[in-house]
């Protein structure tokens, strides 16, 4: 595999992300595999920002630890990034803005980016585009795809912006003294460049999600932006006064029969907890996205973490069924973004899509995927089944009772957060502890809980995926760690170390027996972004299998394949 990592760094407001995204799209249009990630702080102007695009000729799931090419738009970029680039990296910088004296063995390419930008376009910000042109030349990629990408990206800003960008890029491309240093060959396939949040949003849309409720919170906000930007496409977006309102509106909308979702990060989810329990008790199908960031409390708002897993599994008082799924890739974000609604409708319970900053905000070039989403609304009662007063919470074998949608005559009922009988009438205040209400409580509780047994019996999805089953050692991961861990396994196997991968996206419920069979007796190394090794705890609780070896990380930076490779290698005694 040939791969090149390009890091563009500078100040917030320099157009770093825009240049990085353009580069990633151009590479994807050339049939190459792309993975991109942005490092930033919670500050609007100023601050140090970097965007790393890794381009490869086969599938990748991480952005690369050390960059092969650095574009430094200011002096900070040189100083902050020198430990994040290879010693022989190519460094493009503007001598009027920075010097690269501190980089000993790098191949330095000074280009007067600012001067060229002003002379070509009159806009100093376009120095990022000049640099982009130079990078395309070095990568050996043609300039030809850029025009269409610019048109798609800046189309609304008008022809002049596109023309100026093209002029700036071609000046960089044709700058004297730079040549192609790489030769990358694409496979001719067209790819979309999607971050996990956007993929989740589009997946939800494809499943006919018609309402999204949210309060802004990094790193979930881009889901909100997506729904807000597409409100004219038959979907409602409502920004709410807080996350409490967000989840309660979701429950209201879902009760009225519309597929509805809310999303946030850990802090906002903390506020949603009571509403989540209500959805469990009312048996209303809702989907909640929780994109984890570095806690506790405000923590590192723009940084990565996987420390909310046990929290979302146990959040809210009492016991009620819920489904927790953590997509491993951007492709899976789309698939699960859609599937979550079928699961919620089938089992009439909240489904939590557990993302994290890394998957939410990293971009992957994904092949065109199947957008034929089958929609299953679960058991819906209609008037034909009407027979006397409607038993919304009828005791059934599988625990699932047909629900009616307001507006349907003859099937009126009250959904109550208090314990209730089959009609929805309360068995709490006046009747608690009195026969026969004790028995009703018993049965109603069991009815709700049984729904997950039904799910486990009828869906073969609630277990991890095993790759390389006969390997000697296995990495165990969930969610976004899958990407870098898959690459680490490849690196380890290249050295003959015989590694496999056990990766979870479906976390709760879990087919404990099959998971135990998969894990038992294997040499396992748990890899996750938290202190307490929450996945390992969960696995032990469910299966009794204890994973002793652990690679944990909590500094806010996502895993790189290289660091997993190094640590795993040392753990197996090499």
């Amino acid at each position, binding site marked *: 595999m040939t791969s090149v990592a390009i890091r563009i760094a500078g100040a917030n407001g320099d157009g770093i992300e825009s240049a990085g995204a353009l580069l990633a799209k151009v590479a994807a249009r050339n049939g190459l595999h792309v993975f991109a990630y942005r490092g930033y702080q919670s500050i609007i102007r100023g601050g140090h920002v970097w965007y790393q695009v890794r381009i490869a000729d086969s599938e990748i799931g991480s952005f690369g630890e050390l960059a092969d090419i650095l574009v430094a738009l200011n002096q900070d970029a040189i100083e902050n990034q020198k430990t994040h680039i290879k010693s022989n990296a190519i460094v493009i910088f503007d001598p009027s803005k920075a010097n690269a004296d501190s980089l000993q063995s790098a191949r330095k390419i000074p280009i007067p980016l600012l001067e060229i930008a002003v002379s070509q376009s009159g806009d100093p910000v376009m120095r990022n585009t000049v640099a982009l042109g130079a990078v395309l030349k070095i990568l050996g990629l043609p300039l030809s795809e850029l025009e269409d990408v610019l048109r798609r990206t800046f189309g609304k800003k008008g022809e002049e912006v596109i023309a100026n960008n093209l002029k700036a890029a071609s000046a960089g491309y044709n700058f004297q003294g730079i040549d192609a240093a790489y030769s990358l060959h694409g496979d001719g396939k067209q790819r*979309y460049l999607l971050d996990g949040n956007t993929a989740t949003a*589009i997946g939800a849309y494809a499943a006919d999600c018609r309402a999204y*409720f949210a309060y802004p919170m990094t790193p979930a906000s881009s889901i909100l932006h997506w729904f807000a930007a597409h409100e004219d496409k038959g979907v409602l977006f409502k920004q709410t006064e807080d996350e409490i309102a967000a989840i*309660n509106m979701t*429950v*209201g909308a879902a009760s*009225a029969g519309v597929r509805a979702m809310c999303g946030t990060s850990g802090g906002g989810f903390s506020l949603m907890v009571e509403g989540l329990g209500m959805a469990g008790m009312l048996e209303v199908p809702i989907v909640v996205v929780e994109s984890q960031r570095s806690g506790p409390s405000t923590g590192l708002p723009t940084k990565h973490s996987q420390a909310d897993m046990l929290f979302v599994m146990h959040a809210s008082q009492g016991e009620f069924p819920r489904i927790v799924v953590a997509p491993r890739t951007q492709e899976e974000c789309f698939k699960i973004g859609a599937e979550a609604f079928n699961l919620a409708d089938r089992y009439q319970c909240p489904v939590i899509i557990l993302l994290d900053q890394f998957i939410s905000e990293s971009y992957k070039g994904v092949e065109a995927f199947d957008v034929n989403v089958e929609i299953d609304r679960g058991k819906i009662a209609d008037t034909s089944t009407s027979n006397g007063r409607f038993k919304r919470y009828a005791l059934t074998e599988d625990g699932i009772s047909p629900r009616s949608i307001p*507006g349907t005559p003859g099937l*009126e009922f009250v959904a109550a957060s208090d314990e209730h009988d089959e009609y929805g009438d309360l068995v709490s205040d*006046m009747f608690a502890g009195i026969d026969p209400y004790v028995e009703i409580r018993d049965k109603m509780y069991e009815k709700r809980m049984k729904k997950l047994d039904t799910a486990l019996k009828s869906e073969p999805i609630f277990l991890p995926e095993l790759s390389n089953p006969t390997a000697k050692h296995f990495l165990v991961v969930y969610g976004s760690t899958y990407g870098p861990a898959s690459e680490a396994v490849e690196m380890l196997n290249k050295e003959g170390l015989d590694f496999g991968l056990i990766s979870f996206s479906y976390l709760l419920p879990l087919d404990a027996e099959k998971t135990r069979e998969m894990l038992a007796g294997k040499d396992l190394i748990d890899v996750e972004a938290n202190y307490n090794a929450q996945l390992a705890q969960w696995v032990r609780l469910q299966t009794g299998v204890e994973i002793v070896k652990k690679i944990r990380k909590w500094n806010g930076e996502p895993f790189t394949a290289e660091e997993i490779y190094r640590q795993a290698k040392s753990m197996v005694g090499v």
Partner: protein
Amino acid sequence: MTQTYTSGVKPVWCPGCGDYGVQAGILRALNELQIDKSKVVMVSGIGCSSAMPHVFSTYGIHSIHGRVLPVATGVKLANSDLEVIGTAGDGDAYGIGVAHLIHAARRNIDIAYVVMNNQIYGLTTGQASPTSLVGAKTKSTPFGDIEEPVNPLALALASGATFVARGFSGDPAHLGELIKEGILHKGFALIDVFSPCVSFNTLNTYDWFRQRIYKLQGNNTSDLVSAFTLATEAERSNWSKIPIGLFYKVERPTYNELDITLKKGSLAKQPQHTKEQVLQLLEEYR
């Protein structure tokens, strides 16, 4: 055929509870309006007031404490054709969930919000509420309440509510008329109701109210300043004169009428998203 709206379920209220009067008021309004009961969704929170949806035979959601308005808003946003009635207590509406009142009012979401205001926390056996009067001795304020009460009417007016009224559960006919007007009103309608707690509020009794309340007549209900003046009369008169009736009513487009998606029609009835739409959306990412 005349519809009946009662479920036969008995509420948990004490004999003489003000909430029976509110029940009677809502029933009068529904009986007169004869709205298709399968299209009515009554949403309550937690507390004595939360029993309200259960005594009716419409659709209902008995939600959690303070969240009547967001749940009701979700229902209304999802299906504009439903008639959504919020029934809350003063703890729900003016305590734990007070933020939602401000936002529902400024959104002008088309919900009638009936608040059973008994100035006490009854179901938790008698602690001070956000509308308890200064000096009120309760289980949580044994030395007398030292906080100014929330003025729900002034708060709603300041937040942009387009219909603000106050009723008294000792006069269900008058109250029923206000609730009916509130349901008919296109936009957010707050109907605050003095609904005495006969078990725990020994200060604000039926008699106490009867000596102080008077019915508004001929007031200019489209003038915000006079509405504010009347809405603060009880406080300004040191609770010697308490006006009830309609304080304010103006027309302003509702949230559902302004939202780019909802103005095309009820969300629940819009066409299902298609594969072609999804493919078109994905084109932005190439």
